[in-house]
């Protein structure tokens, strides 16, 4: 480990890899969302496919896709070279609303 190694080769690159870490955090979050969505679909289709069950299942899938859309846009922004743009509150709200709607959907299914 010489002193030359600690100098980043690409001056655009943050030595703390902050954009990469944030990108991976988004990736982990989409994985958590996928697990929740799969469990929701299992709950919805448990004991035969009724009309309400299929509607709830479709709703959960749409919410999951919405969450994936927000995450995908953000991941693409973070993958671009240079310092990434700030995260917009609108997108944070969209991600949270997808999560909340999935929980409300789940409450309807459980009852």
């Amino acid at each position: 480990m010489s002193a030359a190694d600690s100098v980043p080769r690409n001056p655009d690159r943050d030595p703390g890899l902050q954009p990469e870490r944030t990108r991976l955090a988004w990736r982990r979050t989409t994985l958590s969302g996928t697990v929740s969505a799969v469990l929701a679909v299992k709950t919805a289709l448990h004991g035969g496919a009724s009309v309400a069950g299929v509607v709830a299942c479709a709703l959960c899938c749409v919410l999951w896709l919405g969450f994936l859309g927000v995450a995908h846009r953000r991941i693409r922004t973070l993958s671009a070279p240079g310092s990434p743009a700030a995260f917009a509150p609108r997108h944070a709200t969209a991600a949270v609303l997808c999560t909340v709607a999935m929980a409300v959907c789940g409450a309807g299914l459980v009852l």
Partner: protein
Amino acid sequence: MIEFVRNVRLWFAPAGVRQDGETPDYRFSLANERTFLAWLRTALALIGGGFAVDQFLPDLRWGWRVGLALALLAAGVLCSLRAVNHWVRCERAMRRGEDLPVSRFPALLSLVVAVVAVAMVLVVLVGWEG
């Protein structure tokens, strides 16, 4: 309460946050974003836990099962709403150069999780066949 309403307005108005203060080092914003995502994962885990209680504990009495599932789902909703609210507050504090906001929420969530865990232990020990 008025502060909360102003925060809710900021959730939907992306330009609102940029109006005051100056843009901090982007790495601080990214760290704030990762904290937000960690809270969102916690919320998703609570919601998934609610579904799991409903699906994988079929031997429980209806009341216990639905009550626990709804408690976990409600905790997930609270956690995700709090995630975006705290993110907005931290972002604004960083822009204004103020101290980061303190919060009682982690303690509250820990207590709720502990109560649910104790309830689960009691349910499994006492009410398994009931």
